[in-house]
């Protein structure tokens, strides 16, 4: 059988292959990486009956324009995304969280994410990708991932593992994109390094998400934090969501492609159930931080998992 594949007619701004990421390797200096928005990533695979950890294309702001040169496939797009499908029947404005059939010659045009940053494209059965340390996730900075970890580029051939064999399409209706402004934070290992007054400000005044934000970190600008102890510590392990504060007092929230260790004190950490929402916030948006207890964070996490399960239970045939 001839190999089925897409050709990239426009790569988009930051399109990479992502699954859940790499585990058990951080002691080698290799960051976990993986899809920024776990929930959207997971739902894209579940909608297509894929294995949960199948590799997807993650895009930011503007996604790729792909042409199906050979084969037949079924796709879905998740996130808050505006996209179109061009086929012999004409042009269709796509609905997210719904599967579509693509035939040879069809084009998929992922135009933009709406009031958000990341979206996901999954195909039935997945793309044909090589794994490294159990994952297909790309880390362009370290040349790790399919095609030496490069971002998806113009004229790339993206291979499809197998042609679609299912007839019916599926949808999750009524996905809501709620506005979120307040993000919950647990105290970090150096919480006590910072003055009481500046922590009070940190948890009550707005912070602006700056353009210096990518898969590695999010720089926010607001009242700077006053460090009373030391602005350097012996490097220690980092977990995504950690809020580190370098000497200038301006916080950086470390995201999925963070360095594995870091030598700046950390005032806190974004709770896990708020992470997907945080990374979807556009730059120039103002957000607030609120301090919560571990018990509250664990309860929120249970609710987060519950909500995902409910969405999966709501998948219906069209």
């Amino acid at each position, binding site marked *: 059988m001839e190999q089925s594949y897409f050709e990239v007619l426009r790569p988009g701004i930051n399109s990479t292959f992502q699954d859940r990421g790499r585990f058990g390797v951080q002691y080698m200096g290799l960051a976990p990486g993986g899809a920024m928005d776990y929930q959207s990533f997971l739902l894209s695979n579940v909608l297509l009956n894929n294995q949960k950890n199948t590799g997807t294309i993650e895009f930011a702001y503007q996604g790729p324009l792909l042409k199906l040169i050979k084969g037949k496939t079924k796709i879905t797009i998740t996130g808050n995304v505006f996209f179109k499908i061009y086929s012999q029947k004409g042009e269709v404005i796509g609905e997210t969280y719904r599967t579509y059939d693509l035939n040879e010659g069809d084009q998929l045009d992922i135009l933009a994410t709406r009031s958000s940053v990341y979206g996901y494209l999954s195909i039935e059965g997945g793309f044909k990708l090589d794994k490294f340390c159990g994952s297909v996730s790309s880390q362009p900075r370290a040349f790790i991932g399919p095609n030496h970890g490069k971002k998806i580029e113009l004229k790339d051939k993206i291979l499809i593992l197998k042609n679609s064999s299912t007839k019916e399409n599926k949808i999750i209706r009524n996905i809501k994109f709620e506005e979120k402004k307040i993000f919950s934070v647990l105290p970090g290992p150096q919480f006590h390094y910072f003055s009481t007054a500046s922590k009070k400000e940190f948890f009550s005044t707005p912070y602006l998400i700056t353009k210096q934000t990518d898969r590695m970190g999010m720089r926010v600008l607001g009242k700077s934090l006053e460090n009373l102890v030391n602005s350097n510590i*012996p490097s220690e392990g980092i977990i995504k969501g950690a809020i580190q504060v370098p000497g200038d007092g301006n916080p950086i929230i470390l995201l999925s492609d963070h360095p594995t260790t870091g030598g700046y004190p950390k005032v806190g950490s974004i709770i896990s159930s708020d992470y997907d929402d945080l990374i979807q916030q556009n730059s120039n948006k103002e957000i607030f931080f609120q301090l919560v207890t571990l018990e509250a964070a664990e309860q929120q996490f249970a609710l987060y998992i519950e909500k995902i399960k409910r969405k999966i239970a709501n998948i219906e045939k069209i």
Partner: protein
Amino acid sequence: MIKKITNISDQGIICDFGEEVNKDINKKVINLFNYLKEKSNKNEIKGIYNIIPSYNKLVVHFDLEKNNSHKIKEIISTIDLKKLTTTQSGKNWTIPVCYDDEFALDLENLTNSLKLSKEEIIKSHLETEFYVYMIGFMPGHPYMGDLDKKLFTSRLQSPRVQVPIGSVAIAEKFCIVYPYLSPGGWNIIGRTSVKLFDTKNLTNPCLFSPGDTIKFKKVNKSELK
């Protein structure tokens, strides 16, 4: 021993072995790392994403759907650290370095600040048996120590935007090697061609492990691959 175990996230805890940075403390961190890693591999501790050893801390990152910090803290606090012995002894490596001026970008400046000749700096670097405290920041990036006191130095006032791959550099009491092109503020004294992280090696991509020992060997430019 562990001074305290605290949460650093709802899916992560940190074991604090104190503020000092020395080999004895680091070996205790690595012993606990190896022990927990084995337990996790055997699935005797569930839902472990990553265990990250550093100079004097150990971070455990876990899946809150499968485990929680209360249970993990309890497991760790019941371990008798004194009974954990190093099962794997560290490997010994000899790493070629070329100290030629074209690679040793900060050697000249160091002769002024350290009040030592180039030869004296190189000699001290070659005589030291380095210990790998941790791998971190970037894939394969080792933090090694301890330099002889006479080479203790601060970082550059203004970090370089791009440090060449394989640069061997020093700061404070430590020595590092940059495995990738990256920004960096350490004082560069030479270059090696050894590949610290090899993505073609699927079973063991990272050359060094914490606890390994390293001696540097002076080579000519032509001997760098």
